[in-house]
């Protein structure tokens, strides 16, 4: 058996409880993800590195926690988060002969300086004007500079420029300022002002990305070398713009429909693998970059649909709802079907896992926080890592060890909790929160007062992990 193809499907702001196989009360049909779980291994304790977009993607693609470098997202026209020396997952795979492609939301920065006219300035409330750029210029330091042989996408669905980028070129020159079209049926359009290609439709993004991902798969049919396809969706991130063909498919409003569409995209890519005869030779990983957006609270009331799936908190929060995400792995003939694992795992672990998969020896100064999950996938062990740091912004940190979750702050909240929900959670008088996730997955009860020893240990562990620059077991010797 040759090295398998690798497909990573990465949803955007998809909640733990949005997927049927994670929430039997979900109001959203997700037949393809449910089937994917039946065909592979479903993780119930999987985490993104951050509660927001760019940092989670950075950790996924490098095996290094974002917080060793930064906390925020890349802003519109912002620079790359990757240093040149930083080994990325596609670069590693390229070295073993993989052909690599990214189709979808990049959001890890580019170098726009060559395309931006000298002296171009953002106007308050309007952003850049379309004519402040020479759109025919290449845009370097994007996906092609960091390991991808091919890129197609719109960079960020709610940021300018609103257009397609293929490889390092803008496909359609933006000529007009952004207007949301269509007006999203739920939530705010969230689009930041700036240049837009004329006629740009927000609801055309996911169908086009789906089509491109599917055709990329078909093009691989007779290739000798394996491929790596990274498909970061722009859904169900706001603007919430489900296609007409998905409208009304869920009982959770337009967002639910957008999730159903996300599931259909997963289905389309999997179908393409089947049709191309590649499914048996392809490892598929599905996960999400962070928890659901703040509209989830309204949705609980309006549709009785629980996007965080019983977890506390949403996107941005250090609570479980911010970073505990669906995670499914399918590798036919290698990873047993129909398995559920409750092992603590992080997206940051995929780097070392894939390194193990392809027999790549990771350098000492790369993938510093990545644990090899392969023995877990193969069923040889049922646990790989004992601890994991949770962090979005610089002020609030969480650390998990076994059943204990410590938030080194009076709470893990960043996203505003509506009044009607606030009473659900007792006020915390301490400057620290300690929860037993086995008994209290919703993180309601603070046990910090009862277990000062655990608090002290976890604080020390957090300090140690943050301080020593790495946490991967293969680097442990170095610190001793």
């Amino acid at each position, binding site marked *: *058996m*040759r*090295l*398998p193809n690798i497909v990573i499907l990465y949803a955007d702001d998809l909640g733990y409880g949005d997927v049927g196989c994670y929430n039997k009360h979900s109001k959203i049909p997700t037949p393809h993800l449910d089937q994917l779980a039946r065909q592979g291994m479903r993780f119930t304790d999987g985490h993104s590195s951050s509660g927001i977009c760019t940092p989670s993607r950075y950790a996924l693609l490098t095996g290094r926690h974002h917080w060793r470098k930064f906390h925020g997202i890349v802003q519109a026209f912002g620079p790359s988060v990757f240093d040149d020396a930083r080994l990325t997952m596609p670069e590693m795979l390229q070295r073993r002969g993989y052909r690599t492609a990214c189709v979808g939301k990049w959001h890890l920065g580019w170098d726009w300086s060559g395309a931006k006219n000298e002296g171009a300035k953002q106007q308050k409330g309007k952003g850049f004007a379309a004519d402040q750029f020479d759109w025919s210029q290449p845009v370097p330091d994007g996906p092609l500079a960091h390991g991808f042989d091919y890129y197609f996408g719109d960079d960020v669905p709610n940021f300018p420029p609103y257009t397609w980028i293929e490889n390092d070129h803008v496909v359609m020159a933006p000529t007009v300022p952004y207007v949301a079209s269509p007006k999203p049926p739920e939530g705010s359009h969230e689009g930041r002002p700036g240049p837009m290609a004329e006629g740009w439709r927000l609801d055309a993004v996911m169908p086009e990305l789906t089509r491109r991902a599917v055709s990329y798969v078909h093009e691989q049919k007779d290739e000798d070398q394996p491929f790596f396809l990274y498909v970061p969706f722009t859904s169900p991130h706001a603007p919430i713009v489900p296609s007409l063909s998905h409208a009304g498919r869920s009982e959770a409003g337009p967002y639910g429909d957008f999730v159903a569409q996300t599931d259909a995209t997963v289905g389309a890519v999997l179908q393409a693998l089947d049709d191309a005869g590649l499914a*048996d030779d392809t490892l598929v990983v599905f996960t999400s970059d962070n928890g659901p957006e703040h509209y989830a609270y309204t949705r609980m009331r309006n549709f009785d649909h629980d996007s965080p799936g019983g977890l506390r908190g949403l996107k941005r929060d250090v609570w479980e709802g911010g970073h505990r995400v669906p995670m499914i792995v399918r*590798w*036919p*003939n*290698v*990873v*047993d*079907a129909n398995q559920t694992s409750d092992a603590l795992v992080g997206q940051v672990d995929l780097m070392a896992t894939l390194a*193990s*998969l*392809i*027999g*790549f020896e990771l350098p000492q100064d790369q993938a510093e926080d990545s644990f090899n999950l*392969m*023995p877990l996938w*193969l*069923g*040889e062990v049922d646990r790989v890592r004992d601890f994991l740091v949770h962090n979005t912004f610089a002020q609030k940190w969480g650390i998990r060890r076994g059943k204990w979750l410590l938030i080194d702050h009076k709470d893990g909240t960043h996203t505003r909790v509506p009044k009607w929900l606030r009473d659900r959670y007792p006020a915390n008088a301490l400057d620290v929160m300690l929860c037993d996730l086995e008994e209290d997955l919703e993180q309601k009860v603070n046990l910090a007062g009862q277990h000062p020893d655990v608090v002290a240990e976890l604080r020390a562990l957090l300090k140690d992990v943050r301080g020593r620059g790495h946490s991967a077991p293969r680097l442990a010797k170095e610190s001793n």
Partner: protein
Amino acid sequence: MMKRVLCLLAGLFLLATATSQGEAAVQPKQPNILFFFADDLRADTVGAFGGKDVHTPNIDALAARGTKFTQIYCMGSRHGAVCAPSRAMLMSGRMLTHAPDNLKGIKTLPQYLRDVGYETFATGKWHNGNESLTRSFPDARSVFRGGMCDHFQVPLCDVIDGEVVNKRNPEGHSTEHFADAVIDFLKRHKSSNTDAPFFAYVPFTAPHDPRDPPQHWLEKLKDLPRPELPNNFRGQHGLNLGKMTMTVRDENLLGWPRDKEQLRDQLVEYRALVSHLDAQVGRVLATLADAGLAEDTLVVFTADHGLALGSHGLLGKQSLYEHSMRSPCVMAGPNIPVGESRNQLAYLFDLTATCLQSAGVDAGAGVHGQSLWPVLRGKSKGRDELLFLYAKTQRALRVGDHKLIRLPQIDRTLLFNVKADPDELHDLSELPAMKPLHDKLCERMRILQSECGDPLAWTAKDQLPVEIDLTGKRWPADRWQPQWIRKKYW
């Protein structure tokens, strides 16, 4: 090293017997044991074991009132006649390396059982020599001594008071002769009003080829869909497993590359042979019930091993793939859970230890098998690992869901996940991700080989070409094949 293994095995057995003594009180008395042993019966050709378009109502009904074992295996063979060592292991309860085919000097299951008051009886195929036959079953009827026969010209004899008598070549099908003999025994046992429990051993020589069922069974099943080829059907094996596999007699029932339609014809005939066997098992079980003995009788139905039937381009059982080493296995009767299934790893010779425990026998270190009673009671994870040996050409190690196959003659190692890939088509050995597991299993295999006294070198001195193409090779018919089969296939 050997001593260590024996100590270990003895220790395990002490554990098993400790349990058995503890549980003795639960069992009201020694059960009768009716032990069916089919020949070359591939597990997935039986309905209860996932067979598609098959007709095995009696075995299926037995499974419904008992417990199925879905991962029970023959440990292998020193040579191409795999049924002989499989039966030697079953009769002795010992592992392959300690169970010679002729069972010389080894006390057998029926001997142990007679010691504790059992009446023993056998009919059917005995492939382990005369001395062990007359010693094991001084009372046996319609015994076929040998490895295979024309089912309609089976040479039979009886054993009476330890003497082989009444040699004959009767008309009729072998499976029916054996069923008749055990039915007759059950009736005699019933009418004798004895208090002694019985052990009746019924090893059929079906569905071993010639694939020659009574013609009316082909008629009966003609409305079933034509059997599909196995998922892992291949025209040829490709990788060279050596003469002891590639061109052994079982492989000569069709030419190379395997013709799909001819093979499907053979599957039709095999299926009828299995259904006919099932019907005979049904007759015996009906007799058992009519005699009022069913409640007190532990019924075991299993087979000596499986059969390739076109999987991996092979036809026989001279390989260590699942299709060839795994047996269907059902236990039903007193204290056996009803309608359950166990997927714990087991060897067929664990059934020997199971029967011994049922009878309250402590065989000590002489028996290597582990009683399946703890598994039946849901109190044991069963064996962690299984070693398989075939001739001097193949070794395999099963640990968890993974199976390593070592081919010393071509210096190749294969690695399968038999749960994710039950067809064993996706060799994982070359995947870098599997290297730690691969190396671990290789090391473990060597240790187990050494512990059980298997001297085979990891890599053979004389290497064979890795691949072999048998296209156009001659495939002579043997003398057992009846005329119509010769005409049809040769």
